[in-house]
């Protein structure tokens, strides 16, 4: 029995369909396995991991590794767990996301509704800045953060993420506002509304979806950053990703795999939650970042 599809008009037979389902399920398994292994093994005592099967359910369930990863594991010198670094990440991410989104929104508004000669070139310059390999700015950035007195501090990291994130947020808002009817803006202008009034009263109320996209993209990117954190943070500002890497790769003592797994899930939790709650917007942001149209 052939299944006719109204959506794509391609007919497939029963044998083909069985193959397709098998293929799709196999890949679902491939993507889920690492997460599954991490969750299962973070709930086992260490002896069970070393002796046992990583795909087996825990014989003796324990949340000890989670407690250890959160508050007592050795990260660097002190047995602080990942807790302080989790908060470091929050303190870095929130201002960086808010500032870059606000600036991106205003930039997008200017670049679409208040166009001037040369604006496309300026936008091109900002856009290319999103794609540079950050290795090219590491050395001068370290110097400048030092000169500004921001070396090794959370405000320093916020600045770095703002600078290299604003190109993306500008891209999002520019593409979004380009589809917004310019006549409305012109009409408001004739009625005497100024720059900020038009933005506040006319564009912003309908910007909900793109604000969500921008916030999610920035949050995910900044939370997941490792290079800047590893280069510019010291112990008091070290973000979660760097702390996790220190925890996992510290060579002293016994390798506590279960604690490492629990730590990895803790580091992944915020972005995973965002993905689960607002996956639709997450995908839209990814697409806008790649297919600019």
């Amino acid at each position, binding site marked *: 029995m052939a299944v006719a599809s109204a959506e794509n008009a391609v007919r497939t037979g029963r044998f083909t369909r069985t193959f397709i389902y098998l293929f799709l399920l196999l890949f679902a398994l491939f993507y889920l*396995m690492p997460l599954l292994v991490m969750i299962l093994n973070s709930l086992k005592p260490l002896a069970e991991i070393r002796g046992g099967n990583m795909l087996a359910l825990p014989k003796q369930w324990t949340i000890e590794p989670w407690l250890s990863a959160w508050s007592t594991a050795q990260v660097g010198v002190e047995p602080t767990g990942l807790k302080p670094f989790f908060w470091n990440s929050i303190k870095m991410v929130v201002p960086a996301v808010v500032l870059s989104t606000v600036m991106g929104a205003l930039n997008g508004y200017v670049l679409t509704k208040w166009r001037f000669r040369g604006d496309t070139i300026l936008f091109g310059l900002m856009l290319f800045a999103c794609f*540079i390999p950050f*290795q090219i700015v590491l050395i001068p950035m370290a110097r400048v953060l030092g000169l500004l007195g921001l070396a090794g501090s959370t405000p320093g990291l916020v600045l770095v993420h703002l600078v290299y994130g604003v190109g993306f947020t500008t891209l999002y808002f520019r593409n979004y506002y380009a589809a917004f009817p310019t006549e409305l803006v012109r009409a408001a202008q004739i009625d005497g509304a100024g720059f900020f009034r038009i933005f506040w009263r006319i564009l912003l109320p309908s910007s909900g979806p793109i604000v969500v996209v921008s916030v999610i993209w920035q949050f995910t990117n900044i939370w*997941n950053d490792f290079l800047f954190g590893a280069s510019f943070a010291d112990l008091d500002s070290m973000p979660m990703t760097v702390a*996790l890497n220190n925890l996992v*790769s510290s060579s002293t003592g016994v390798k506590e795999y279960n604690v490492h797994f629990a730590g990895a899930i803790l580091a992944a939790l915020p972005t995973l939650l965002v993905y689960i709650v607002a996956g639709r917007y997450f995908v839209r942001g990814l697409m806008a970042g790649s*297919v600019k149209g």
Partner: protein
Amino acid sequence: MALPSARADFKTRLQNLIPKLVLSPSLAMVLVFVYGFIIFTVYLSFTDSRILPSFGWVGFENYDKLFRLRHWDIAVANLAVFASLYIIISTVIGLSLAIFLDQKIRGEGFLRPIYLYPMALSFIVTGTAWKWLLDPGIGLEHTMHLWGWASFKFDWIKNRDYAIYTVVLAAVWQSSGFVMAMFLAGLRGIDNEILKAAQMDGASNWNLYRRIIIPQLRPAFLSAFVILSHLAIKSYDLVIALTGGGPGRATELPATFMYSYTFTRNQMGIGASSAVMMLMTIAAIMVPYLYAELKEKS
């Protein structure tokens, strides 16, 4: 009469100035922190900087040294292997998943997020997970032994000749779902009428895809290529978390090379020249792409 008009004039001029004023902080930041810094790093690559930047001009000496370093050769060769496999495999998997998902699959809404969630994770998390999964002592090999397959051997991550493929595996795991999403969007945008007409003419599914559908996905192919190659060249975190560049230098990439020469080996001049090489490679891919995109839009 002259006064109000002058004031109005001033007001309009201010109104005209505001957009540019609003844009200027971002622009200044980008000009200084991106383009200024690029110029500074390019300049450093021509100096005798070691631990700290220094300004003694040495011409092309750093580049000369760089190209003769075996360490750099290895990093570039690894990148070539890694990037080409990563791009090809991610594209093939992404396209297959997208085409299959597009067959009115029951449970698409359930499967799609599973394919995509790795993209939300940090490369450090991905690296940590795969590091232990691939570890012969506790991971896949160990599990297969416990299941009775005693001769099963999978020690790529500890093997100089194969370690780079484990980086490919973890990277493909992380981004192939994203490629799937790009192709799926492309597939959903194809006009059904053409497909129906081709089917009336008796085209087989295979020919339908090969002759009509896949050629129409050209923009998605291009975007996937640009995004993946750009990710590959920037790859740093994943290698650090998964293998640390080892065993030996088996998974060293230009990004890890740059970091270790600049910050741990105190060869800043060489580190800067390697960063310049990375930038030029990415620019060669991104500039034409962005230029075409911007030109098309305006």
